[in-house]
């Protein structure tokens, strides 16, 4: 045992020494992985590693050097059983010091006047670079290994290491940005404290006015809230209608209804809004038909809350359908059969038994609709007109002429307050009210059909709405081939040629305007997808299989991050990662980090669902056969989780392509993403190319999903869990 303890400690100590003498401590402008820094490593002061920086007078690095030396000393003087506590202390001290000095000393010296007054001047420093990041990670691992040597969690270093790193990552990429955003609300441009911005914005009537009750305009917060309530109510009802049609009627095309559930996953969020303007906008085709038939002047009614509401209904009803179909299916038929044998007809059974049992599910669908609507950015951006919602206001507070980060932060906090309250309220209300009647036992019986007085209206509504949805999507595909929508409907391939033109001149020339962002998107999505899957499934494994203190809190915090709107993430990321100690804006890394931690909860959820189907004694068997946790993970868990892994991969890939709300804050000239580019096209009025590009994205994603689905289909083990792939894949929430 001692040799293994020593070996892994040796490994991180060696890595630490290496990082201190061979990796640049500070961030390099041209990027670490370009390796251009290798040439000037000796000559350029900026590139020197931590040890040299420390020796040349950066005293803030001395504690780091000393702590590493202490760790090395412990390694050679103490037996593994004895040094655990000391290692934990060294690791914790190292992390704490790096955090403190990184936050305290910025580009131009002390970040806070108080420190400057106390300690005098200090040379400014760049953000953390490769050396610092590696060393920080190693300090974290030191805590984990120390705990393992003390016998925590049965001495499992792999599990402890994984937990420590995950906590570190989540703290860095979820909580640190939120805290920064909160702090940012209270800062002047130069970083000094002020509450002026907050005071000005928090009472701003543009946010909080209730004037619409007596004929004025309501504040943006109330408008967003009102819209979210309407959308949540509407999508829940429509979703229920679809779910009832799909499970309890003899409707002939109910199988194809399920196709609807794929739509929100593959549709970039603003596309529905775009299609609506083509259909119902001022020069929309339907508008023209109505106007010419009746002579009315329809005008700009679509732009504003009505239009956003319609777009959100189209976008989010499929998600509600997805949630509710599980709920409606999950009610044990024997409940309904029992009711019938107790002298109740179908109508009474539906009213008194089925509906009440669905109540928690309906609440869940309502919450999701509410949060989706609150977080939606793409549709309001396209359809908002002059009256925006919170998410778009946040955006314009940062990028527009206002340039008021404090206002953006306040608005973001208001938005976050709404979504988190909804999340917590639902949690509170749902606890102890779970009627899920699906048991592991085979439940005989069949669901009864809907009573006639419900059945026909329900089918009518469903068919009408499905037709509307199909029309809207047909618009999207068709719109790319029309010259100028609303004016010149002659068919053309111009938009595609302009966006995706390919030339030939001693090799392929990507002449189309879209190629640049297209390839960037693919690259980043391809990097983010495996990382998301890995982090998500590792977390799922820890949550399901390991018992560690704070697990409940950890899980709750993760689930809560579902409720953080993308806009809030975007704004918090630029506030957190624009300045040292962690400077990532304008890089691909910040986009990747954003995708990983935004989509991870879905991976976690899918992983938890899949893991729950794996007998826990499989892990234990592997352990008692002498395999370490790491090997168990590799040889037993991962192969058995293949469907869940593929689902997580596809999901995160697709989400990286379609998301806009957070991305739009983080893109740069070098790393532009497809969605951000399309939004730019829309703002310039180039609808044709925007639509053509969107159609191509949708097709790419259908191809990818189809391809992965084929791969998942080829499983060799005969077990009754093939459905895991589909269910975990479809149990996600698509969000802007």
């Amino acid at each position: 045992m001692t040799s293994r303890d020593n070996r892994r400690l040796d490994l991180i100590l060696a890595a630490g020494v290496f990082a201190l003498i061979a990796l640049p401590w500070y961030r390099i402008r041209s990027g670490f992985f370009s390796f251009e820094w290798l040439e000037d490593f000796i000559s350029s002061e900026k590139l020197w590693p931590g040890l040299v920086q420390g020796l040349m007078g950066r005293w803030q690095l001395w504690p780091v050097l000393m702590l590493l030396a202490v760790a090395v000393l412990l390694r050679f003087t103490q037996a593994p059983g004895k040094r655990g506590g000391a290692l934990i202390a060294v690791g914790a001290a190292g992390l704490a010091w790096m955090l403190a000095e990184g936050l305290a000393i910025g580009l131009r010296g002390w970040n806070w006047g108080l420190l400057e007054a106390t300690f005098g001047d200090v040379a400014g420093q760049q953000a953390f670079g490769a050396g610092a990041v590696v060393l920080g990670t190693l300090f974290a691992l030191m805590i984990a290994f120390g705990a393992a040597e003390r016998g925590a969690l049965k001495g499992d270093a792999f599990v402890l290491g994984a937990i420590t790193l995950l906590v570190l990552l989540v703290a860095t990429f979820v909580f640190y940005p939120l805290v920064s955003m909160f702090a940012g609300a209270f800062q002047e441009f130069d970083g000094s404290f002020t509450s002026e911005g907050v005071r000005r914005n928090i009472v701003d009537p543009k946010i909080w006015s209730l004037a619409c009750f007596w004929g004025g305009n309501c504040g943006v917060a109330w408008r967003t809230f009102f819209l979210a309530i309407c959308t949540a109510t509407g999508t829940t009802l429509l979703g229920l209608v679809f779910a009832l049609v799909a499970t309890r009627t003899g409707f002939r095309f109910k199988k194809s209804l399920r196709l609807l559930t794929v739509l929100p996953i593959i549709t970039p969020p603003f596309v529905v809004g775009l299609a609506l303007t083509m259909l119902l906008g001022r020069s929309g085709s339907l508008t023209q038909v109505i106007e010419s038939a009746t002579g009315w002047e329809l005008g700009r009614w679509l732009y504003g809350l009505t239009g956003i509401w319609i777009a959100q209904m189209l976008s989010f009803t499929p998600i509600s359908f997805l949630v509710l179909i599980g709920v409606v299916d999950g009610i044990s038929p024997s409940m309904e059969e029992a009711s019938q044998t107790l002298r109740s007809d179908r109508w009474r059974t539906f009213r008194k038994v089925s509906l009440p049992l669905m109540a928690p599910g309906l609440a869940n669908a309502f919450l999701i609709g509410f949060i989706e609507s609150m977080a939606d950015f793409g549709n309001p951006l396209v359809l908002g007109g002059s009256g925006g919602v919170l998410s778009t206001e946040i955006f314009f507070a940062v990028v527009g002429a206002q340039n008021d980060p404090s206002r953006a932060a306040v608005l973001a906090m208001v938005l976050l307050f709404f979504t988190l309250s909804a999340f917590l309220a639902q949690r509170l209300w749902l606890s102890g009210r779970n009627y899920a009647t699906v048991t592991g036992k085979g439940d005989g019986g069949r669901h009864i059909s809907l009573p006639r007085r419900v059945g026909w209206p329900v089918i009518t509504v469903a068919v009408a709405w499905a037709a509307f949805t199909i029309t809207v999507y047909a618009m999207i595909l068709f719109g790319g081939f029309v010259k100028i929508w609303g004016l010149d409907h002659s068919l053309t391939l111009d938009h595609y040629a302009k966006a995706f033109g390919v030339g030939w001149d001693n090799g392929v020339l990507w002449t189309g305007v879209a190629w640049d962002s297209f390839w960037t998107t693919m690259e980043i999505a391809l990097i983010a997808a495996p990382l998301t899957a890995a982090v998500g499934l590792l977390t799922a494994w820890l949550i399901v299989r390991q018992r560690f203190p704070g697990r409940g809190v950890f899980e709750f915090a993760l689930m809560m991050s579902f409720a953080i709107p993308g806009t809030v993430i975007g704004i918090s990321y630029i506030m957190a990662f624009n300045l040292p100690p962690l400077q990532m804006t304008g890089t691909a890394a910040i986009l990747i980090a954003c995708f990983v931690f935004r989509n991870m909860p879905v991976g976690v959820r899918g992983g938890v669902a899949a893991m729950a189907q794996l007998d826990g004694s499989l892990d234990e068997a592997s352990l008692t056969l002498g395999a370490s946790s790491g090997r168990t993970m590799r040889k037993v868990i991962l192969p058995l989780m293949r469907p869940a892994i593929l689902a997580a991969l596809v999901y995160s890939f697709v989400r990286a392509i379609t998301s806009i709300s957070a991305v739009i804050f983080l893109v740069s000239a070098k790393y532009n993403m497809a969605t951000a580019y399309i939004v730019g096209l829309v703002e310039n009025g180039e609808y044709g190319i925007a639509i053509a590009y969107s159609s191509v994205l949708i097709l790419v994603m259908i191809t990818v999903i189809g391809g992965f689905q084929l791969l998942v289909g080829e499983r060799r083990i005969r077990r009754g869990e093939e459905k895991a792939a589909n269910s975990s894949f479809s149990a996600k929430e698509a969000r802007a």
Partner: protein
Amino acid sequence: MTQTKGAVAFRNVRKTFGSFTAIPDLTLDIEPGKLVTLLGPSGCGKTTTLRMLAGLESPTDGQILIGGDDVTRLPADRRDVSMVFQSYALFPHMRVGQNVAYGLEAGGMKSAEARKRAEEALELVGLSGLAGRLPAELSGGQQQRVAVARALVLEPQVLLLDEPLSNLDARLRRKVRTDIRELQQRIGLTAVYVTHDQEEALAVSDTIVVMKEGKVAQIGTPRELYESPASDFIADFIGEANVVDGRVLSVQGDVAQVELGGVTLSLPSRGQSPGPTQISLRSNALKVTVAGKGDGTGIKGTIASSAYLGDHVEYEIDGPLERIFVVDDESDTPLPSGTAVALEVRPRGVALIPGTA
């Protein structure tokens, strides 16, 4: 070192889950080469004990030794034990041979060598030639044997078995338990076997440890437990005895004269002194005859209900011992309810329960 190889010791082990104490204070020694059964009703802590030995739970307090070494803080993958799981836990995505070789390869053995050893282990359990199958392609009994082979191939100091037969049907269970016992004796391996089935425990064990609420209720050979139960709990749990009231009339040396339902018996005194006592009365310790037909001695009673079960008849009989349960091998003429009977006591199935005077 060779003396202690395979020995297991629990020293003042305590295990709590939150506020629930599963094991208050367990001290237990297991001799090398023996098959020891942990027996008890569900929730008695037997599986927790086994899992702590495997390293799958860590004790809240106390020490666990395997082969003389303290393994209390050693993770499961570094302990020299292997385990057969109730569900077998065969890796469904690996072939049978890969399953058996898994532990060997984890230990760093070359895969060719590991495969050879796996084949040998499969032969040992009578499954040679099935290495290429997937677990799902085997019957329940075969899967069970693969699980045993996978554990045995590592030549652990201690083999742990967690209710290994509970997923088999009754007929197969009898055969497999004999196989496991034979194999264990042939190899001379220490084995710790958890079960809640007293018949299974009696059939396979060198020693049975009966547990109740996290504590050891009695340790002994199957015969000791059956014939001299230490408490009414043991008497009832092992072999469903009637626990009845009697009276010790006198004690001479090891022999006590005992009054039981109007008859007087000579029984081993087991430390009891004259006075009222509890007596364990096996259901087959009484011979039922119609009153007045025999020699007139025996406990008087009336049949309250009877059930004909082919090779024996079960009676519930009211009398001076309240209602007792009796099994009579004489099934040619089952007696109807209401028959007055005399019960002749055979000394073999009767024992004083110590500490109940």
